[in-house]
């Protein structure tokens, strides 16, 4: 992006001061113009210092930009280009650049050819009968120049819009200590089942274990009993039962207790025959 700094200064340095486009209105123009004999002074032939040429070319965003510059410098209206004069000046630049053996973008050469063609067609005698809009060979060039110029202007407008880090800065303040409130992930029960299925498939649990629905509530009760027994002390066997649960609940608790004893998770103590049975967690010792 070296060309941006040059773009603003180079044309003025290299040539006589460019006429601002704003002043290039019709007031200074003759009331009429004769082809080949405009009634305004032609600018003196361009002189470009050789070492400035590269800079000069970089200052332009292509052939349309160069053409616009030439037109503005001539005080011409885009709609009324003197093609021969513009073509002559354009060719001067191109040949100067080529003589210096600077690399020239292909687009510049294409434009040179286009200008030459328009110029030659302008020289041909006009055929009055043909439809007018199509017959002016300059029309397409004028359309492109106008189109390019409006976006060139739009780019200049864009440059003027106040923007961040140049005309303003986002305001931010330091943060106080913030509460640590990392939300928990959501889990669907199905995901757990799916995960379990994966485990079971791998472990081949389907064949080696028979886990029944009843068994599951037994295991839940085992956990419940274990948490009751989490202390160091003995708990009476009866206190584990909740009569309100009914017969089924009592059976489940009983099965759970048996399973806990079998798995040696609890120890069971009875000090006398038919006396109180006490349990406590083995691990609690």
């Amino acid at each position, binding site marked *: 992006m070296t060309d941006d700094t040059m773009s603003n200064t180079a044309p003025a340095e290299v040539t006589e001061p460019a006429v601002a486009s704003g002043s290039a209105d019709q007031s200074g123009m003759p009331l009429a113009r004769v082809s080949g004999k405009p009634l305004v002074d032609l600018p003196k032939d361009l002189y470009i210092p050789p070492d400035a040429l590269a800079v000069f070319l970089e200052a332009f*965003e292509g052939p349309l930009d160069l053409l616009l510059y030439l037109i503005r410098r001539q005080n011409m209206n885009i709609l009324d280009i003197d093609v021969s004069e513009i073509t002559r000046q354009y060719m001067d630049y191109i040949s100067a650049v080529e003589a210096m053996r600077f690399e020239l973008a292909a687009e510049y050469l294409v434009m040179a050819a286009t200008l030459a063609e328009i110029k030659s067609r302008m020289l041909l005698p006009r055929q009055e009968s043909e439809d*007018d809009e199509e017959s002016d060979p300059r029309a397409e060039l004028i359309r492109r120049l106008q189109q390019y110029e*409006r976006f060139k202007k739009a780019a200049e407008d864009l440059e003027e819009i106040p923007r*961040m880090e140049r005309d303003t800065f986002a*305001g931010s303040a330091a943060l106080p200590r913030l509460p640590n409130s990392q939300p928990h992930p959501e889990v669907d029960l199905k995901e757990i089942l799916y995960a379990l299925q994966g485990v079971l498939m791998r472990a081949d649990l389907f064949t080696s274990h028979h886990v029944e629905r009843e068994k599951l509530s037994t295991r839940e009760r085992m956990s419940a009993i274990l948490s009751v027994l989490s202390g160091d002390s003995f708990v009476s066997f009866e206190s584990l039962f909740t009569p309100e649960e009914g017969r089924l609940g009592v059976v489940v608790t009983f099965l759970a207790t048996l399973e806990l004893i079998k798995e040696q998770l609890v120890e069971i103590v009875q000090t006398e025959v038919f006396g109180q049975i006490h349990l406590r967690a083995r691990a609690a010792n």
Partner: protein
Amino acid sequence: MNEENLRRIQAITEAALLAAGKPLNLDQLRELFDEHERPARQVMEHVMCQLAAACDGRGFELKKVASGYRLQVREEYAPWVGRLFEERPQRYSRALLETLALIAYRQPITRGEIEEIRGVTVSSNIVRTLLEREWVRVVGHRDVPGRPAMYATTRQFLDYFNLTGLDQLPPLSEVRDLEEIGREIEKNMQAEIEFEAGGPAPEPDDVAGDDAGDADSADHQTLH
């Protein structure tokens, strides 16, 4: 909602905008409140007005941009604040700005279409820079051979340039209708002939006359 409550919402809003350091929209701001205390949109809009007023005479202002509201340094203080930063603010080349302008005003647009209007190749660097800055993005592919990417500007582009929408971009200058140009040229020619023949000269105004039938005036107006 009583005064005290409004003041509290305003302070929380200011705190949140300064904590975020980037624009937040009304709903993002409302989301900060628990459901039972969440201000209605109208209340929030009122609070934003109050907050904007409360920034009068301070170093910053409340600015509405595309993504929401932002507290930012007042432009008039940028010369001093800018000295905080060693690096000069980045300048963008004309090539980049012209490309960006074409994407902004003509979106969605392909690289080929940009090149056609600018008359030169658009370098890959420029496109990459614009994409990296997240000012433009690819919004699709034109259904022509090669299926070239179509570019459009982003919300970040508007935020960066302090705009709330594309309609805030400066209007494009007018382009004269080609048919009109043709007629004018014809008229000029006619006048020249008459001039040579000693006839009356046309009014200069005719040449640059206002064009009601502007082909491109459609987007000229919509950009206002």
